[in-house]
């Protein structure tokens, strides 16, 4: 029964293809991947939690629907960015901001097809404002006049979301600095070089910082807005709405109870709406 929807979608896609004179070929998509929880893209020191593998999922999709998803794994975010800008991929599986902020430069138009659930079946990403556990700062209201480290603009949750949080809460830090990594931001707190830092909410569980920072050594004062953690996106300048619908249908069918074990979660969900205003200002 679960495949009826996909079969119907394939049939509709074929019909649409005939009507529009598009080639009647199986869908084959090259996807650039950087996933926090995937073994092929995560750092070795978090492989116990970042144990997700996609091979089983790709095989089932190909067998059951004929859609050939070809994943190329990029452990480094900058490698993923180069891949996106190369224009040689049909889609991206990553933090949405990584792809969306580059789409104009890449000549792409990414549509989020599905969101990918993490091993706790969580779909959200936030930034957390942390201080050392023994810090005299007890609440976010006390951050005014303090020295705070954020992430850089390529990390939405610990840069733009953090600045928005400060504005909304009326927080006016005396000094704001940035570091490119959560590890460095945690480091400046451990070294006593800043009062607070904003890091991704997975930094103390699924990032290199797990090797040198104990979560109990930090308190979270505030959390930024929720944004989608990981999405599979398709370049709509290369593919039709029917392709997008077919892919979405296929991935959703392979979720919940039907999700392959190696995904370590319930798989994929409909994408939650997210339209960051900063996109308009990008070149």
């Amino acid at each position, binding site marked *: 029964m679960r495949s009826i929807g996909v079969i119907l979608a394939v049939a509709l896609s074929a019909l649409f293809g005939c009507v529009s004179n598009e080639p009647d070929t199986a869908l084959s998509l090259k996807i650039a991947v950087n996933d926090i929880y995937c073994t092929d893209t995560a750092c070795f020191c978090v492989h116990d939690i970042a144990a997700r593998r996609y091979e089983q999922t790709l095989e089932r999709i190909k067998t059951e629907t004929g859609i050939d998803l070809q994943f190329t794994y990029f452990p480094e975010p900058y490698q993923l960015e180069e891949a996106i800008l190369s224009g040689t991929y049909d889609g991206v599986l990553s933090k949405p901001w990584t792809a969306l902020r580059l789409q104009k430069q890449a000549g792409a138009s990414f549509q989020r097809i599905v969101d990918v659930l993490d091993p706790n079946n969580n779909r959200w990403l936030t930034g957390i404002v942390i201080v050392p556990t023994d810090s005299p700062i007890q609440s976010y209201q006390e951050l005014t006049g303090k020295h705070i480290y954020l992430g850089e603009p390529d990390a939405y949750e610990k840069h733009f979301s953090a600045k928005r949080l400060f504005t909304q809460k009326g927080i006016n830090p005396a000094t704001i600095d940035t570091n490119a990594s959560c590890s*460095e931001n945690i480091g400046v707190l451990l070294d006593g070089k800043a009062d607070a830092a904003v890091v991704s909410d997975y930094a103390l569980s699924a990032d290199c910082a797990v090797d040198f920072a104990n979560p109990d050594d930090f308190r979270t004062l505030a959390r930024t807005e929720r944004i989608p953690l990981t999405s599979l996106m398709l370049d709509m300048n290369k593919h039709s709405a029917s392709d997008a619908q077919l892919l979405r249908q296929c991935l959703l069918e392979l979720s919940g109870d039907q999700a392959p074990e190696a995904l370590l979660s319930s798989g994929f969900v409909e994408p939650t709406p997210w339209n960051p205003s900063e996109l308009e200002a990008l070149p």
Partner: protein
Amino acid sequence: MNKRCTALIAALTFCGLSCFSEYKVAGQLGKGHLGTISQLAIAANDTLCVLEINGKITRFKADGAVSDTIDTGMKNTSAIAVASDGNIHVFSTVTEMKKVKSGARMREIHVPVGVEHGVFNGAGKKLGMTRLENLKSAKAAKIISNKLVIADLTARALVFMDLESGKEITRIDKGLRLCCGIFDFCEAPDDTVAVSNLGAFKVQRYDMDGKLVMEFGKRGRGLDDFQGCCNPVSAAYLVDGSILTVEKDPTRIKVYDSKGSKAVQIEGVEELVKGCSFIPTTVDSKGNIYLAANPKGYVVKCAQ
């Protein structure tokens, strides 16, 4: 040729010179003969000592030919240092099996519990074997001014000891952001050591009292920056005081000036390792650079 073209060519030439080092890949050593390489060291006459995890030391002459091999009889050998008297000091990490819970699964892991210290003369004869009770593991070792310096990953400390008595003098255990099971350091000018503090994306230089005297580096995509989840994994001082840094996958080998700026990359070095893996590194008196490729089992030489 007009002035604009001349200026453009000059600018491009300058850019080319400033982006890439004069170092070139000069060959591979030990291909087909080496297993998992733990560490490298340089002995007299620029002899390269390659320590494998199985206790074997292979010595290469300066021309790249194999000189001889030493079977230390030790297991899990993880660090090597050569003293000024020519003696070779080898360190093995002693482990115990322990069951731990990982999620819903139970698994067995090797827990480091101590360090064996073997000393061999230049001919490879064993001179002694002791247990260093104050250490849990040894990932790197150097002998500097009659002090034995050991990188103890388990204790997350750089430990300074008297070479003769083995008595601990001091240890650096603050500010080390070690990850991926990697902890390396090198000898630096003026009786100092430089730690590859990869989780902090820095090279940090300490004096023999454990005082920080210089540091550089941050995460980023520029040539002066360190990339990846954590880097650099290794560093070495060259003869002229410039600083070699080694980044893992994707492999990037760079030479900074003595202040840790103006990095230039060595062209043509292959991907030495896959993922978060250590790249053992050493430099001889002529400035030749040796980089171990694990698990490929050979050493890449770079020369000017």
